[in-house]
C-alpha cells in the first residue's frame, strides 16, 4: 500500500473513532504488524501543521501521548514498540542534554521510524548521536530526502544513518557542498560520489582543504585514478595515514610515482592493498618491515610535516634566503646537519 493511501486510511480510522474518550493506538489498530501504520499516524499527527490543525480540534486527540511539544513518556515509548529497558535508555539519552528534553524529541523519533528503522536501531542511533534530538522532525525529513536525491536509496540510506547518524545533524548546504566538491573538483562521477558518501559518510564533516590535499596527493603523487580511490575507500583513512604508508613504501623503493605516461619501473602495489588492510598485514605483505621501523618512521614523518608547515608559514610571510653551503655531514652546526634533509 502506498504511503499516501495508508495515511488516508488511518486518518479515516482516527476520525471515525474520534468520539472515544481515550485513544489507544494499540486498540485501534490491533495487531503488531500495523505498528508501521501506527507510526504513520503519529507522524501524520505531528509533522505538518496543516494536517494537525484540524485534528487538534478534537480534544480527545489531545490525550494522545505523542503530540508534538509533549514530553516523551515511558508509556508512549512502549507503545512505539520499545522494550522496557530500551525505553529507559532512550529517555535517559533524551534527557541528558542541557535544558532537559528537547522539544523535538518526539518528532525526531517519528522521522527515524519513518525511515524504516526498528526500535533497537533507533535506540542505537540516538545513543550514538544524542544531538539528533535537537533537530526538528521536518529538518530531518528534508535531510533524508536530500540524501536520497544524492543517490542514497533505501537500504543504503538506512545503513548510512545507522552507522553515521551525525550526517543528519549537518545542514543541507554542507552535505551538498561536499558532494559537489567531489564531483567538480575531484572529477568523480555522480555514482562514485554517492559511493564515497555511502562508504565513508564521515567525509561530509572533513575540512575541504584537507579533502582536496588528500585527493591531490593520491592522484598526483601516487598516480591513482578515481575508480581505484573509491574501491579502496580512500576517504575512510586519515591524511596522515595515507601519507605515512605511502612515504614508507616510496622511501623503501617499493612505490614509484608514475611519470608523464603513467609508467613506472616497478609494479606499484594497489591502493586497496595499502590502505584498506590492517597495519600488520600492510607491514608484513606490502612493506615487508617490522613494527618498530614503522613506528619510528611515523614519528619522523610527523616531525617532518610539522616543520614543513612551519617553514611554509615562514616563507609565505617573508622571503628567507639562507645560504647553507655546508657539504659534509660531519659538520657540527645543527642548522646544516639537521636541516640538510630532503623534504618529501
Amino acid at each position: 500500500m502506498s504511503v499516501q493511501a495508508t495515511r488516508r486510511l488511518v486518518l479515516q480510522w482516527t476520525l471515525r473513532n474520534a468520539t472515544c474518550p481515550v485513544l489507544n493506538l494499540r486498540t485501534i489498530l490491533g495487531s503488531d504488524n500495523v505498528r508501521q501504520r501506527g507510526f504513520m499516524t503519529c507522524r501524520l499527527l505531528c509533522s505538518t501543521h496543516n494536517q494537525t490543525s484540524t485534528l487538534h480540534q478534537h480534544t480527545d486527540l489531545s490525550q494522545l501521548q505523542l503530540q508534538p511539544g509533549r514530553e516523551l513518556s515511558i508509556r508512549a515509548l512502549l507503545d512505539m514498540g520499545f522494550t522496557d529497558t530500551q525505553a529507559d535508555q532512550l529517555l535517559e539519552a533524551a534527557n541528558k542534554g542541557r535544558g532537559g528534553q528537547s522539544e523535538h524529541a518526539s518528532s525526531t523519533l517519528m522521522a527515524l521510524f519513518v525511515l524504516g528503522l526498528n526500535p533497537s536501531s533507533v535506540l542505537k542511533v540516538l545513543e550514538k548521536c544524542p544531538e539528533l534530538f535537537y533537530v526538528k522532525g521536518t529538518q530531518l525529513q528534508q535531510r533524508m530526502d536530500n540524501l536520497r536525491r544524492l543517490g542514497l536509496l533505501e537500504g543504503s540510506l538506512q545503513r548510512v544513518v545507522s552507522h553515521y547518524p551525525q550526517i543528519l545533524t549537518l545542514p543541507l548546504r554542507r552535505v551538498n557542498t561536499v558532494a559537489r566538491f567531489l564531483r567538480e573538483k575531484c572529477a568523480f562521477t555522480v555514482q562514485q560520489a554517492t559511493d564515497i558518501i555511502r562508504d565513508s559518510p564521515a567525509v561530509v564533516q572533513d575540512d575541504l582543504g584537507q579533502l582536496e590535499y588528500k585527493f591531490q596527493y593520491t592522484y598526483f603523487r601516487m598516480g591513482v585514478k578515481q575508480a581505484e580511490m573509491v574501491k579502496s575507500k580512500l576517504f575512510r583513512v586519515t591524511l596522515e595515514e595515507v601519507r605515512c604508508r605511502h612515504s614508507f613504501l616510496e622511501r623503501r623503493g617499493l612505490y614509484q610515482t608514475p611519470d608523464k605516461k603513467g609508467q613506472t619501473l616497478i609494479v606499484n602495489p594497489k591502493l586497496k592493498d595499502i590502505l584498506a588492510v590492517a597495519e600488520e598485514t600492510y607491514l608484513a605483505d606490502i612493506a615487508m618491515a617490522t613494527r618498530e621501523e614503522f613506528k619510528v618512521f611515523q614519528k619522523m614523518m610527523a616531525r617532518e610535516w610539522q616543520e614543513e608547515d612551519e617553514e611554509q608559514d615562514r616563507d609565505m610571510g617573508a622571503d628567507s634566503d639562507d645560504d647553507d653551503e655546508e657539504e659534509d655531514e660531519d659538520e657540527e652546526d645543527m642548522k646544516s646537519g639537521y636541516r640538510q634533509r630532503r623534504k618529501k
Partner: protein
Amino acid sequence: MAALMDTRILLRKIKDLRCLTPRRNRVKAKWAGSQPKYPATNLALQNFDATYSLQLGEQWPSVRVSMLCEPKYGALVNNFSTTEGVIADLQSQGCRDFVCQPVGVGALERLQAPGFPLHDNPSTLESVGVSQDVAPPRLRTNIKCFVFPGGDISRFKPSSLFHQPDLYGMLGYYLMDAASILPALALDVQEGHSVLDVCAAPGGKTLALLQTQAIRFLCVNDISVSRTYRLQRVLNSYVPKELLTEERMRITSFDGRKWGEIERDTFDRVLVDVPCTTDRHSVMEDENNIFKRARTKERQRLPQLQTELLLAGIEAVRPGGQVLYSTCSLSQLQNEYVVERAMHLAREEHGISLQVVDLRPITRLFKETFHFAPDPHLGQLVLPHLTANFGPIYMCKLQRLS
C-alpha cells in the same frame, strides 16, 4: 586567493619527483630559473637501487628508507672542556654513552646469555669478569659519545647553545654521526703513539682520536686548503693550545697519495678515511652532488684514488703498525675491492705484507647500538636502520707485518 596559492604550492610540491624541497637555494637557484629535471639525488638513488639491492638483498629497503630520513647524531664529549655538568646534562636528556655502556638497560639481559664470547683481543677489551651476572666487556678508552636510545628521534642542541664555551673557548661536545666514532675506536691508539690522519677534514674522526688523550704526535692532512681551514677552526674550538703545538700536531695540505714518498715507515697508526660517494649525503643533497653528470669522471676514478691513498697509508705506517681504512659508502667497489687491491699492490710492488685484523669484537660489543651487516667477508659495515639511523660506515683494519 590564499586558497589558490595553497593549491599551487601543494601541486608544485606534489608534482616534483621525490618532492624536492622548493628551497630556492638548494640548487644555487639564485641563478637557476627552474629545478633540474633529473636531480642528482635521483641519479644517486637509481645507482644505489641497482647495486645495493643485489648486494644487500632484503635489507636494502630498510637501509634505503633510513638513508632518506633524518640521520641520528651522537655527541662526542670534549674531554678538554672544563665546563662541568656536560655529561650529567646529556644523561638527564636520556642519552647514554654507548662506548662505555654498549648496551641499554633492557638489552643487558640478552647479552648475559651463556656462550657470549667475551675474550678475543685482550689488549683492547677489558672484560669485567667472565661470569654471566656481571656487566659486559668494555673498551678501555677515553672516548665518550652519547646517543639517544634506539627508536628515539630526539635531537641534540648545538653545543654552543647547550653550554657556553668555557674560559678557554672550548665547547662541550661535538655532534657527529655516532658510527664515525667506530673507526677511531677500532684504530686502538695506545699511549705515546704517533698517528697520521690522511684525509682528515672536516675533523670529526680527528677529534675523536684526540679525545683518547694518548697521542704523542698527530699529523693531520687534507688535500683541500679550504677544508683544512675548517679543520683548524674545529680544532681551535675543541682542543687546548698545548696540544696544537709543533711537537704535538702538524696540519698540512698535501696530496695524501704522496705520503709514501714523504714519510715512510714512520707512524704507529694511520687512519685513511677516504673520499667516497658519501651515500647518505648523495641521496639527500643536490648541491655539488657527486652523482651529477659533471662529476661522473671524478666518481668513476674514486676507487683508483682510494686505492692509492690506502697504499700511501700502508707505506707510511711502520712495520708492526696498523692502518684503518674507512669510507661512508656501502659500495663494494669502494670498500672490499679497494682493500684487496691495495693489499695486493703492497705485496707485489712494495714487498709489504699485511694481515687483516678481525674487527668482530667491536661488532659484537656495539651490536646493540648499531646495525651491522651480517658478516661481510672483509671488514665491517654499519648499515643505517630506522631504529639506529647511523652510518653507513665501512671499516677494515690492516696490520703491517714487514
